[in-house]
């Protein structure tokens, strides 16, 4: 892909492999993530879903001895290239984690902090309100903005984490099993929120819940350990979610989505 073309994809990976020391955790992934769609990564536990997701915003940098081969292209630039600033990558690609992890600060500060360190110059109150509205949390917390974020329920905390992510106006939001620690009602609210968010953002979500993937995503990447016994995970099938669940090409995908395996 040429850098001067306007890319129609948010993220493109080319032969992406991820290593921890000598261990190859994820091998040869080629994906085209479409803009303003939700892409789900599914697969059995330990197949490298989260590792792959974390490669998209260079969170694996914090694991000593980890490195990647191949490319992750964003807007035509390889985000593992020599001149790329990981801090700026993470600002453009936000992340929501498995367990809600608000900062031990007030609700207001949780959102304002990220904006401030990234040099936000506009009206902070406005940004906080917009972000909380964007995460469908405003109505619940507008009177308690100065309270500690820890006083919120788990589902509210997770939406706060989404709010603080959209406050720094990323292009892409990565979600690592964002509802796995939540009750069914909170899960539903997060899923509804995702449908709202995809109007403005590209979303990539890792989930082990296949119903969730089927409900929320437009595209699905199926990951599995390689057959050669190397314990490396790879994407065995990637297409529209409908196809994956109704007419998978790979036998292993079929076994997995129909519950015969995993």
């Amino acid at each position: 892909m040429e850098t001067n073309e306007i890319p129609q994809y948010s993220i493109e990976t080319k032969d992406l492999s991820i290593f921890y020391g000598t261990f190859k955790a994820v091998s040869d992934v080629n994906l085209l993530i479409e803009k303003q769609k939700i892409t789900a990564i599914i697969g059995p536990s330990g197949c490298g879903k989260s590792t792959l997701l974390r490669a998209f915003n260079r969170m694996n940098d914090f694991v000593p001895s980890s490195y990647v081969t191949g490319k992750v292209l964003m807007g035509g630039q390889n985000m593992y290239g020599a001149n790329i600033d990981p801090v700026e990558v993470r600002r453009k690609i936000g992340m929501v984690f498995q367990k809600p992890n608000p900062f031990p600060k007030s609700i207001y500060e949780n959102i304002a902090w990220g904006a401030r360190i990234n040099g936000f110059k506009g009206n902070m109150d406005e940004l906080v309100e917009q972000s909380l509205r964007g995460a469908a949390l405003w109505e619940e917390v507008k009177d308690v903005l100065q309270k500690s974020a820890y006083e919120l329920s788990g589902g509210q905390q997770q939406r706060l984490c989404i709010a603080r992510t959209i406050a720094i106006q990323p292009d892409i939001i990565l979600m690592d099993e964002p509802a796995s620690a939540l009750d069914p009602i909170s899960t539903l609210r997060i899923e509804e929120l995702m449908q709202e968010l995809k109007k403005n953002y590209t979303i990539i979500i890792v989930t082990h819940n296949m119903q969730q993937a089927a409900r929320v995503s437009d595209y699905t990447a199926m990951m599995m350990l390689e057959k050669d016994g190397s314990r490396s995970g790879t994407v065995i099938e990637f297409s529209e979610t409908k196809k994956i669940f109704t007419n998978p090409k790979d036998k292993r995908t079929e076994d997995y989505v129909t519950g015969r395996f995993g």
Partner: protein
Amino acid sequence: MNSNHNHYPEGESLRRALATRYRNASIGRVLFFSALVIAILSLVALLYNVIDGAFGYVAFEYKNDPTEFTSKPLDDLTKEELLAILKANLSSGAYTKLDNEKPMEKRSRSVLYTLLLERLIQIDTKQTWSLTDSIFRSGEIKAEVAQKYPEAKLEFRSWLTPVFLTTPMSSKAEFAGVRTAIFGSLWMVGIAILFALPIGTGAAIYLQEYANKNFLNRVIQTNINNLAGVPSIVYGMLGLAIFVRTLEPLTSGSIFGVTDANGRTILSAGLTMGILVLPLIIINAQEAIKAVPDSLRQAAFGVGATRWQAVWHHVLPNALPGILTGSILAVSRAIGETAPLIVVGASTFISLDPDGPFSKFTALPIQIYQWTTRAQPEFHSIAASAIIVLLVLLLTLNATAVLLRNRVQRRY
């Protein structure tokens, strides 16, 4: 949402903002690391300071000319010749007294040589120099000595010698040694550990294996943690009031027929130190017992063992290395403690080896304190030498503890 988009820096201003943030990040890193550098420098300065004091030039004069006693150079005298000189020149009373302490024939040449210098020739130290000065200003020092003390001899001396380790106290720094202090420290620590190890281990077993979570046991646990933080001098006051004063008949040995004694004995000091290290031993033993996997206890109960059988046959043997590590750490704490010994009344001038728990005594840190606070620089030199002895002792103990700990860690 998009209305805010232009409020984040883009392009050139983004580049500059990022550059600033990265500069702050590296400044922070350097600042944080410099704190460690300061810690390292302090340690280096401390060790340098000690070594600097323990070696160096000394200018001294002989009060009595050696040629009054012998025509040979002093260094060439044999043991027999030294013996003869001492016999001929010491008063017979002094000679007999020395002979009674330890037969003169059985003393080594270096001890006799020291006696010759100390009793007959007698040394008068004029000035001492630090190791740094001795190395870098040796020419100046020589010139200075030649001018200021024309009679004096200048020699490069290690204040830390085998003789220093094996001689008892003396009121002259040149002849003082740490023998009695080392023995005093060993006796004191021995009594402390004999007292604290069984009781501390017992308390740890009780708290880990028997105690349920009731109010009393919580109080005991909190109390132990707090005792660990009580200033050591307060333990000294406790020892003074209880062991030295109230239990004087016991600690002085008078009920065992020891006469001419008061409560300021090794026994009092040892028990005081035992109480001081008790919380340390309990807490370490608790950690060691906690580390024994529960499956082991359950296996024992599964074959019908009682609580004590499970503890005695399975938990304790597995926790033992950890408990020993803890006791070694307690020993090193006790060896270095000074304040409580001052309070319970360690004497500073003891020239006889302690011969039992009812002896008066001195200890290494007491000597270091005493010598450091003397005004004459030659006492600072022997204080430095005693510090080296103490640090080497502690290093050995701690290395043993680390080795033990590593062996335990490998097991689980």
